[in-house]
């Protein structure tokens, strides 16, 4: 085990996988920067491609490279730029294996970070994972701890399907002990039960985990036993763990930084309303960012996101 930050975990995962597998390459804007900084060690120039600002083009190139023997990692830097690459991700990466009857695999990873509370305003603050959840053929992950980030990013790089990795820049500085074994993977598709509880199930998505965790702590002081599930992977989604928990607690709060309408929280609520209805004893609560663009002013931005108080309040609403 070694102490790693969330950001360090990303670099470590890339470094290990690039060392392990010569097919792994990196492509993105300004990445000469971090390879130059030595963060990835000494690398063959043919393994890191410092790209022009051409998101659609190099994302599509990564798909073409993935079909022909490489395993590219595309660094899209900030998630708000992914819209430029949507056609290649949705119409190509997600569809090619299916559309060719399995003649081709598309082992490509698209990484992107989501920014909060940095006064970056509407064009640099999106959390667009919900839209990709609606696209069959993609896998979508949003790890919330350094250990998960390292283990799941490594799983993503070794996966034969396209994987979108959403990183929360809120978490970049977060530190914890992480496995150093280069073959230690965290599987894609399994949620983590962070705290066991009996009164209410709190499902946390991506960077909401610290807030949800704080909320569970607060609820414990009020003698409420909350179970905390960190979904980690949005597609595939670990329905079983969520349903099993709600079957015991009868109550569900879903916490998500993304916009409310047709988001990840809506999907989890719908699954439980459909398959867990018999055990549900109270209205499902979604604690999300409201449907508004992200403003520049920190005074406007900060209150928008889910936080401990909003989560605790949601739990209280359905407990009493």
């Amino acid at each position, binding site marked *: 085990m070694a102490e790693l930050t969330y950001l360090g975990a990303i670099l470590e995962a890339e470094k290990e996988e690039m060392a392990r597998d010569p097919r792994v390459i990196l492509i993105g804007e300004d990445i000469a920067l971090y390879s130059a900084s030595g963060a990835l060690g000494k690398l063959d120039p043919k*393994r890191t491609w410092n790209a022009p600002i051409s998101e659609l083009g190099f994302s599509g190139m990564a798909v*073409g490279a993935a079909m022909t023997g*490489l395993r590219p990692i595309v660094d899209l830097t900030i998630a708000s730029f992914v819209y430029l690459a949507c056609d290649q991700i949705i119409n190509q990466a997600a569809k090619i*294996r*299916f559309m060719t*009857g399995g003649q081709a695999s598309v082992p490509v990873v698209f990484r992107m970070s989501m920014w909060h509370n940095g006064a970056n305003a509407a064009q640099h603050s999106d959390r667009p994972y919900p839209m990709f959840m609606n696209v*069959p053929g993609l896998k979508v992950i949003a790890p919330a701890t350094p250990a998960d980030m390292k283990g799941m990013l490594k799983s993503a790089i070794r996966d034969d399907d396209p994987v979108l990795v959403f990183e929360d820049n809120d978490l970049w500085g977060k530190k914890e002990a992480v496995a150093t074994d280069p073959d230690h993977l965290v599987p894609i598709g399994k949620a983590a039960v962070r705290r066991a509880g009996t009164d209410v199930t709190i499902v946390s998505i991506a960077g909401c985990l610290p807030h949800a965790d704080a909320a569970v702590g607060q609820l414990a002081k009020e003698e409420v036993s909350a179970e905390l599930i960190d979904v980690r992977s949005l597609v595939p989604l670990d329905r079983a763990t969520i349903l099993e928990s709600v079957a015991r607690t009868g109550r569900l709060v879903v916490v998500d930084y993304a916009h409310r309408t047709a988001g990840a929280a809506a999907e989890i609520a719908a699954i439980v309303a459909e398959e867990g209805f018999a055990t549900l004893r109270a209205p499902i609560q979604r604690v999300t960012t409201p449907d508004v663009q992200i403003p520049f002013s920190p005074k406007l931005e900060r209150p928008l996101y889910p936080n401990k108080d909003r989560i605790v309040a949601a739990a209280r609403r359905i407990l009493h």
Partner: protein
Amino acid sequence: MSLQVDQRREAYRRMLAIRSFEQALPKRIAAGEIPGSVHSSVGQEATLVGACMALRDDDYITGTHRSHGHPIAKGARLAPLMAELMGRATGVCKGRGGSMHLADRSVGIIGESAIVGAGIPLATGAGLSALVRGTGQVSVAFFGDGAANQGVLYECLNMAAIWKLPVIFLCENNLYAATTPASTTHAQPDIAKRAAGFDIPGVIVDGQDLDAVFEATCVAVKRARRGEGPSLIEAKTYRFDEHAIGIFMPSHYRTADEVEHYRRERDPLALYRMRLLEAGHGEPELAGIEHSVAQAVDDALAFAKGSPHPAPDSIFDFLYSNPIGQQA
């Protein structure tokens, strides 16, 4: 570079295979055997085959919605293509792809994209892959004049140029994008001229002349394999049929005279046949090829019709490398 004797035969065979394959389709569509609509490459055979004759078997290509010609030009077997058009389980894409997506991986095709222009970055990426893996392969992106107005082309020209990727950008300029004349949507008529801004050679060839296309492609391929980077080739060609067959398509956007002129004077098959005769290939030899191609198309039709449809419960097959537990 010019084609050797048996290469000439093979080129003629492939052009004829495209033509005969395409011409067999309208009847099958009318009979309800082929669902949806098809986009035929009749008229553009010399461009497709001329370019592919300059390639190794393991070189990559990407094509378009007009997807039957590319695999045949690259040497694909006809039967799995025809079975795909009929949506059969034996189709090259297991019935999932259909007419706009006849990508046959066994001959190096990594995509026939029905999203106009979207095959271009795939081919560029395959070129990058060949470079990284050091295989000496090249990659050809086929695209239309319409596709040449998608911005992604310029992003890829630029990246292929700065990284000296072994990629050939091959524009099938058939003068129209669906019902829209290129003369109304292109600031100037020559797509090849757009290459200079990216320091890439841009050449124009007569797309109805197989040898001209072959030679230009050979030059580009040599350059690519030597590590000198990409080229753009614009083949001026013409589509003899309507944009699509099996769906209503207006024809007001070009004159009957123009179509007639191309069919009569600029038919790549007729032109090449004449050239073969001049080069000493006798009538019997050509008739032999013609007979065998006709037979191959008949065989493909029989194979397709005799093949099973995919089973409805196989619907999730090929979506992911491993099933992830989707629900029907």
